[in-house]
């Protein structure tokens, strides 16, 4: 099970991004609590791309969700300016700490040419299907 898609970096599109990744999480057999955690983490990552990557300007967000080896891996990548602090951030700067809390592990690569947030969730029922 996997998903790969590209979305406009628009606030109105975050719901669709969540929805696509949630569908993969459900197919992985995650319970609704864990599905909610995946939805929240993905929402924070997509918000981060729009607010910090593109700063409200148009752009693209690439999203993939893949299950393998007992893990669900979600990548949210933008081609924006890279992460930077914003005093007017609409999320209090809570996005990455929330992602840290919800994922088994995560990392962020941020350059002038964009940001990639790599999130890994435990998905024990995936392990046999690889």
């Amino acid at each position, binding site marked *: 099970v996997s998903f790969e898609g590209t979305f406009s970096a628009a*606030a*109105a599109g*975050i*719901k669709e991004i*969540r929805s696509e990744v949630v569908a993969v999480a459900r197919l992985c057999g995650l319970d*609704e*609590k864990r599905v*909610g*955690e995946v*939805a*929240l983490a993905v*929402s*924070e990552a*997509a*918000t981060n791309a*729009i*607010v910090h990557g593109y700063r409200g300007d148009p752009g693209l967000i690439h999203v993939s969700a893949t299950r393998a080896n007992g893990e669900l891996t979600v990548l949210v990548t933008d081609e924006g300016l890279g992460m930077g602090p914003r005093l007017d951030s*609409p*999320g*209090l700067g*809570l*996005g990455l700490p*929330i992602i840290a*809390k*919800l994922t088994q592990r995560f990392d962020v690569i941020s350059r002038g040419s964009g940001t990639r947030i790599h999130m890994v969730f435990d998905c024990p029922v995936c392990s046999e299907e690889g």
Partner: protein
Amino acid sequence: MTERTRVSIQGEIDLATHEAFEAQVSERLQEGPVLLDLSGVSFMDSTGIRVLDNLLRNGADLKVARELQPQVQQVLEITGLIDTLPWADD
């Protein structure tokens, strides 16, 4: 007991909708104390947390109904706001 206007919010609160959420609650707060009913909210991320935090920091006369959907309960717990929200039954 303070008479409060119940404001019921429905749907999902994220970057696309948090401003409308804030506007709706703020508007009713101008008329008097509010009982905020989030039981119809199926999803909230940090943008909704910021709205609630802003309202409380600005001294809003606001109580929140305890009935919450699981994901909303979860984000309130993760951010610690669950401990500081003024609950309607407190």
